C-alpha cells in the first residue's frame, strides 16, 4: 500500500494534481457552495462549471504553448493573436443592427462559418510567421515572437478601426457561453482539440519528433528528421489555438477589444505549461499536465476573487501563491525541506 503510494507520488503529474486539489480544498473551505453543482436553466450550474468555462481559452492556448516549449521555443505573441482573431471575427460578423418590420434582427456581414474559419486561419498564419522567423531566419524564439506581440495589437486595432466592436449576432454567443448536453460548449471545443492533438502525438511519430527536436535539434536533423518543418508546424498550431481562444473570449464578452483581449494570456499559458511539469528547456512534455496547470491558474484566480482579496493586491497574492506552488514542485526544494525536518529527528534518537 505504502509502496503504491510512493510510486504514485513519483508520477510526473502527482504534484500538479495535488496543487489543484489543495486549491479546490481552500476554495471549498472558505466558500460553502463551492462544490455545489445544480441543474438550472437547462444546464449544469455552479462554481466548478464556471471555472471550467473560464479556463477554456487558457487551456487551448496552453496546448499550443506546450508543443512550442517542447521544441525549446516560446511564443509570447499568443495574446496579440487572440486579439487579432477576435477582431477579425467581430469585424466579419459585424456590429450592424437591422430592423425588419419593426423587429430588431441581427445579420452578419459574412456568413458566420466563414468568419470563424477566416479568424482561425489568420491566427495560424500569424503562428506560421513566428515559425518562419524561428526556423528559417534563425531568430531566438522570444525575440521572434516579441515582434508579433507588439505589432499584433496594432493589427487588431487596424481591423477594428481603433474601436471596440460590440457583437449583436446571437448565434456567435453560443461558442463562449452556450451549453451542449448541460455543459459549456467551450469545453467541447477544448476536448476536441485535446483529443485530436493527443491522438496525433501518440498515434503518429509527431510526439517522438517534437521531443527529439526539443532535446537535440542538430542530432535530429542529422537523423533525417525535418526539424524546421516540425518547428514551423508547431508555431502555426500554437497560433491556431490562440485563434480559437480569441473566438471563445470575444464570444463570451460579446465584443472584440484590440487592446485588451487576451492580455497577458501568454504569461498565464507559459505558467500553466510549467506548472504541468514541462520544462522550459524543451524535450519531454505533458499535455495533460498543461491542462491541469491551466485549471490551477483559473482556480487560483477564482479563489482570489471569491475570498474577497482587495483588487489592488490580488496580483501580489497570485504571485506569492504561484511562487509557493513552484517551490513545492521543485524536487530539490522538497529534498532540502526533508533534510531540515529529518536532521533534528535523528538527533533525538541519539539522545
Amino acid at each position, binding site marked *: 500500500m505504502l509502496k503504491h503510494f510512493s510510486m504514485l507520488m513519483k508520477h510526473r503529474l502527482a504534484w500538479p494534481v495535488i496543487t489543484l486539489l489543495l486549491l479546490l480544498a481552500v476554495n471549498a473551505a472558505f466558500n460553502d457552495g463551492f462544490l455545489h453543482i445544480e441543474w438550472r436553466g437547462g444546464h449544469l450550474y455552479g462554481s466548478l462549471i464556471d471555472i471550467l468555462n473560464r479556463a477554456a481559452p487558457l487551456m487551448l492556448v496552453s496546448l499550443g504553448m506546450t508543443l512550442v516549449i517542447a521544441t525549446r521555443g516560446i511564443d509570447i505573441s499568443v495574446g496579440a493573436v487572440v486579439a487579432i482573431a477576435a477582431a477579425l471575427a467581430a469585424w466579419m460578423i459585424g456590429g450592424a443592427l437591422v430592423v425588419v418590420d419593426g423587429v430588431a434582427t441581427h445579420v452578419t456581414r459574412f456568413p458566420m462559418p466563414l468568419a470563424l474559419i477566416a479568424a482561425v486561419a489568420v491566427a495560424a498564419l500569424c503562428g506560421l510567421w513566428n515559425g518562419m522567423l524561428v526556423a528559417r531566419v534563425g531568430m531566438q524564439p522570444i525575440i521572434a515572437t516579441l515582434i508579433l506581440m507588439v505589432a499584433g495589437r496594432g493589427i487588431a486595432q487596424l481591423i477594428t478601426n481603433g474601436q471596440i466592436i460590440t457583437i449583436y449576432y446571437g448565434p456567435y454567443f453560443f461558442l463562449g457561453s452556450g451549453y451542449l448536453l448541460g455543459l459549456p460548449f467551450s469545453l467541447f471545443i477544448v476536448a476536441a482539440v485535446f483529443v485530436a492533438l493527443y491522438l496525433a502525438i501518440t498515434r503518429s511519430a509527431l510526439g517522438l519528433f517534437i521531443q*527529439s527536436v526539443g532535446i537535440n535539434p542538430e542530432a535530429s536533423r*542529422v537523423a*533525417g528528421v525535418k526539424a524546421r518543418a516540425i518547428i514551423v508546424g508547431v508555431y502555426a498550431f500554437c497560433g491556431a489555438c490562440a485563434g480559437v481562444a480569441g473566438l471563445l473570449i470575444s464570444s463570451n464578452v460579446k465584443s472584440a477589444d484590440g487592446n485588451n483581449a487576451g492580455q497577458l494570456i501568454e504569461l498565464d499559458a507559459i505558467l500553466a505549461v510549467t506548472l504541468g511539469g514541462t520544462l522550459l528547456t524543451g524535450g519531454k512534455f505533458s499535455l495533460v499536465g498543461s491542462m491541469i496547470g491551466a485549471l490551477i491558474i483559473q482556480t487560483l484566480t477564482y479563489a482570489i476573487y471569491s475570498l474577497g482579496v482587495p483588487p489592488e493586491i490580488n496580483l501580489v497574492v497570485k504571485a506569492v501563491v504561484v511562487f509557493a506552488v513552484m517551490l513545492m514542485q521543485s524536487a530539490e526544494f522538497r529534498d532540502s525541506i526533508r533534510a531540515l525536518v529529518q536532521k533534528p529527528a535523528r538527533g533525538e534518537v541519539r539522545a
Partner: protein
Amino acid sequence: MTPILELSGIDKQFAGVNALRDVQLRLFPGEIHALMGQNGAGKSTLIKVLTGVLESSRGDMRLAGEAIRPRSPLDAQKLGISTVYQEVNLCPNLSVAENVFAGRYPRCGALQGFRIDWAEVHRRARELLARIGLEIDVTQLLGSCSVAVQQLVAIARALGVESKVLILDEPTSSLDDDEVQKLFAVLRRLRGEGMAILFITHFLNQVYAVSDRITVLRNGQWVGEWPAAELGPQALISAMLGREFAATAGAAAPMAAADAHTPALLQTTGLGQTGHLHPIDLNVRAGEVLGLAGLLGAGRTELARLLFGLEAPDSGTLSIDGKNVRLANPADAVEHGLALCPEERKTDGIVGELSVRENIALALQARQGVRRFMSHAEQTALAEKFVKSLGIKCTNVEMPIGLLSGGNQQKAMIARWLATDPRLLILDEPTRGIDVAAKQEIMDEILRLAQAGMAVLFISSEMSEVVRVSNRIAVLRDRRKVGELPGGSSEAAVYELIAAEHEHA
C-alpha cells in the same frame, strides 16, 4: 622515494552497486602515470573521488603523507590536486587571460584590492602559458583558439594554482598528432619540475610514449601497477580485458578488393566547398570499405558533411547510381539510402534524454515520415534486435541513452542507421573515445556489413584501423585529396603519402 599521493582501499557504491571496490593508486613526484581500463572500469569514478566531485564510501587518501578528504573540486585544487577534464570546461566568450585567472584575479587598489589588476593578469597569463611553451595573444577570445590551444589553456589554468598533482582526463581525444606531441612535451617539462601527472587515455601508443608507470582497473577493481617498460601492449590489453587477447592486426582483415568493374554507387566529381574542402573526386562501390585517412583538420569530416547534405557544395557534382543528385538536407540523403554516424556523438548523434528504443528507431521513423508510425511494440522489437546483434549493453531498451557508456552509445548510433537499411554507411570516427574491445567489435561489424553488400566510408584518426579494414584508402591532407592506396597498404605507406605532400608544399 615516497608517493606524493596515495589512495588505498577506496570503495564507492551507487545505489548498492559497487562502482569501485578496494582500489588503490600511488603517484610519485616527477612521474607520468597512466590510468587504464575499459569503459566502465571505474576510471572516471576514481577521478571524481580523487577530485572531490564524489565522496568515497570507504578508503584512505593521503597527500604527502597527510590524510585528506576533498569535498569539492575547489577543495581538491586548494590541496594541490588539479584536473583538466576531457571536455574543455572554460568560457569561450572570455579572453585567454581571463580564463586562466577566472575566479582568482590578482587585485590592486584601495579596499583590499577592489579593482582587478589587468596588467598583472595579462603578464602572469603570458608567463604561465610560456611555461608550457605557448606564445599567443592572451587578450584574444578563447573561442577563437583551436581546441588544442584551449586544452593547453586549461592546463595553464590548472597550473596557476600551486599544484602538486595534475590529472588529465583524455586530454588528447580531440588533438591531432602534432598537437599531441606538443602536449607531451609540456607534460615532460612538468614532470621534470617534479609534478606528479595522472594521465587517462584510450590510445595505447600514447601510453607508451609518455608514461612511466601504469595502473589498470577492471570492473571497478584494481588489477595491478607496473612500470610501463615492463608491461607490453599485449599484456596491457590482457590486463584490461581480463582475458588473453590475440594480436588484432590481421584478425579483421578486409576481404578481397571489390571488383573494380562494379559501377560506383556514389561518385563525386570536383565536389567542394570554398573554405572547407577543395574539389574532390571520389567513388564508392557497393560491398567495399573505403577508408578516409588524414590528420585532424584534413577535411575528412567536411567531406562527410557534404556527402550527407549537411553542407551545400559550391562546386562539382555528386551522383548516386550514375544520376546527379542535389542533397538539400540529411533527409534527402537518407532518401537516397545514405547514412552518417557523425563525429560528435554527443551534439550531433544521440538524443540524450530519449530511450535507447527511441534513439534507435529515430532515423527509420524519420525516413518513413510522420504518419507511418511504428508502434511501441515495433520500436521495441527493432531496438532489441540490434541490442542483441551489436551487443549493446543496457539494462533495457527504455533506459535513457545518455546513461550508456560511450562505446554503447556509438553502437546504438550504428544501430539507428542500420535500421534504415542504408546502401552507403558513412562512419566518422566511430571508434573515438571507446574501449579496445568495443573498437574491435565495431570494426568486425563494418567488415560484416561490407560483406553483405553495403558500401562503407570509414573515417578514423587511428591509421592502424583504417589500414586494417579498408579495401581502398583515400588520403586527404589540407582539405584536398592527395592520393589513393590499395587495401592492405601499410600505415607507413599512408604516412609517406601525407608526408610526401608536406615536402612538396
